[in-house]
């Protein structure tokens, strides 16, 4: 009798095989999905990393170019060049007798150049790379949970 009951509830072998195949396929698809996401994220990260490197190189090149342009501009505006240009245009250096001084209210003498702001008005810049580019998923998750908990804690207070 006991033997008969077991036999009555036992699944057919092809069903068991099908379940195993299904389970295997589920694991396989799940694994492939995870691998796909990982691959996509890695690809994105690599592309972004390469782009950042290029941008950094470009920035370096631009900084060099800016310094060069500044010097070229100074060369074009140098004392000697300006004097020659002025003479070509028919000007001559002013002499003391040419000057006429007129008092003009509100006009003060020439101020010394300010090429950068004074110390008091400075605000520090943020870092170039945002944390999102360097944090792992775990870091993001941990931080999000922490922020959530902190904000809830704040609400309670």
């Amino acid at each position, binding site marked *: 009798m006991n033997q008969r009951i077991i036999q009555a509830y036992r699944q057919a072998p092809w069903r068991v095989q099908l379940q195993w195949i299904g389970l295997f396929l589920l694991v396989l698809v799940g694994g492939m999905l995870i691998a796909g996401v990982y691959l996509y994220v890695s690809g994105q990260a690599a592309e972004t990393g390469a782009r950042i490197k290029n941008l950094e190189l470009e920035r370096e090149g631009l900084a060099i170019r800016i310094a060069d342009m*500044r010097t070229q501009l100074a060369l074009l505006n140098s004392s000697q060049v300006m004097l020659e240009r002025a003479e070509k245009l028919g000007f001559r250096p002013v002499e003391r007798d040419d000057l006429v001084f007129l008092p003009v209210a509100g006009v003060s003498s020439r101020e010394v150049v300010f090429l950068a702001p004074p110390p008091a008005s400075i605000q520090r810049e943020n870092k170039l790379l945002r944390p999102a580019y360097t944090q792992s998923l775990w870091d993001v998750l941990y931080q999000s949970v922490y922020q959530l908990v902190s904000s809830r804690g704040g609400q309670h207070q």
Partner: protein
Amino acid sequence: MNGGIWRMRLIGAVFVMLSAAIVYQMIRIQNSEHSRQLVEMFAKTYNQQVRIIIPERGNIYDRWGNLLAGNKEVYEVGIAPPQVVNPETVARDLAAVLEVDYYDTLRKAESYRKEGNERYELIKDFVPADKIRQLEQKVSEYQQAEKPKKGAPPSLVGVYWRPHLIRSYPENELAANVLGFYNYLDRWNGRGMLGLEEQYNNLLAGNKQQVILPMNPTEIQEIPEIPPGASLITSIDRDIQAAMERIIDEAVEANGAESGTLVVMDPKTGEILAMATTPHFNPNEYWRYGEIFPVGSYFNRAISQLYEPGSVFKVLTMAAAIDAGAVQPDTPFVDVGAIEVGGIWIYNWDRGAWGPQDMVGCMQHSLNVCLAWVAQELGPTQFYKYLQDFGIGRYTGIDLAGEQVYPLSLPGDSNWYPVNLGTNSFGQGVATTPIQMITAIAAMANDGKMMAPHVVKAYIQDGVQYTVNPRVIRQVVKPETARTITEMLAVSLENEASNALVEGYRIAGKTGTAEIPGPGGYTNMTNASFVGWGPVDDPRFIVYVWLEKPTSSPWGSVVAAPVFSQAVEELVVLMKIPPDEIRQQMASP
């Protein structure tokens, strides 16, 4: 049947053994020392890049923001031999454009094919940007050209160029003696030499930094932002500097002098507005330094060359005596043409006797005998105390590298003799630099306050501009003494109708003529000087002129005073100082 099972088991055993051997080998390789070293080497060679980042050297500006020293883009050109497609094209084009040796370049371009050389080969450094534009043009042409049916196509693949900066001085020789220079050809160990470049080298250079960057693009790492070196804003006015250099050049030429120095200072702040000395030097070609400044010559005479200043020194003697109450402007003195000091007779410049004088007359006629008497009236203790207060024998502390000083001999020193009191009173037997003299005498134009001379007015570091405040060295004489001396020297110039006078502006000043000592005593050659300031009622400038060994005339009043006048003629225009009359009208309500 049994044979079949046996064979199957044998094959199974072989596969199991093979698998086990593979697993064993994997474990062995993973854990071996060689493997660890190999991994480290790969990580070092291919996974990371070590870069030394040299920050941009700070700029130097004049007081209005005109660039005096900046940076220029140049390129390093090199070859990666394994990547070279066509060595002949590479060698031919690089030889033509960069003017390098064809065969040497060809050898480097072929070195991978012939010797397996994988190292980067430097072809030329400090290549100007226009040459690189020519190479870029060629690259573009080769990309558009049709490929030949036989042989390698013309190509510059494998040639790399990378920009970097070198120091550049857009004004060329202008203010070079103040700026100094930077030996940019030593790319990794370059440093500022002389002048501001040396004095502020650390500030200008910034901090080099070595960074290790991962080559794996997924390992993103921010290149640390290395701030450029600090920039300097100097007190130099480019236009005044240019004018003063032109004036001193003309004066040296016209008077057949060996050298000339002209310094313009704001007496109220100690700011140097111009510092012109000869000979000139182009810091863009700093390797020619030795040609222009042979051994024993001076890069910046204004701060480095010691000389006996002569009668301009009388300003200090008279100021000390009046301040101490030893004499007054109207104190009478009968000049008999000679005076004995310490057993030695001292004479006037013309060996003449000028009869009854007051102190204004003594200064006007620059009487050595009178000033030696004044120093005696003051006494050595007081006299030398004042000289020390005026900074004689001490560094002024000007922010330029290369300042020299000659110690002042004091009573009690082995090299001091009683006659020194007499000779020192008119600027002989004492050695100073022009910067010492102008700093000391500027106190007369600033109510007795001696200001520290300086060239840097502000500096910019990390994007912030910091102002350098003027510094008072000391109140060396009372304000009324300074004003009295100024008035005395203004009157004396007017009385003698000096060549230094400038129409419309009241000026105070003093000539100086000092004999130059040689191996057998004093020679016929002189140092001719003039120091003057103005406008007298509100001094805006003090000018120091020194011509070394003029041949047209030995006298300061003949050769240096007109140079001063010419300098002031231009200064009042460039500094927009109205004539006294107009200025006083504008000041009155």
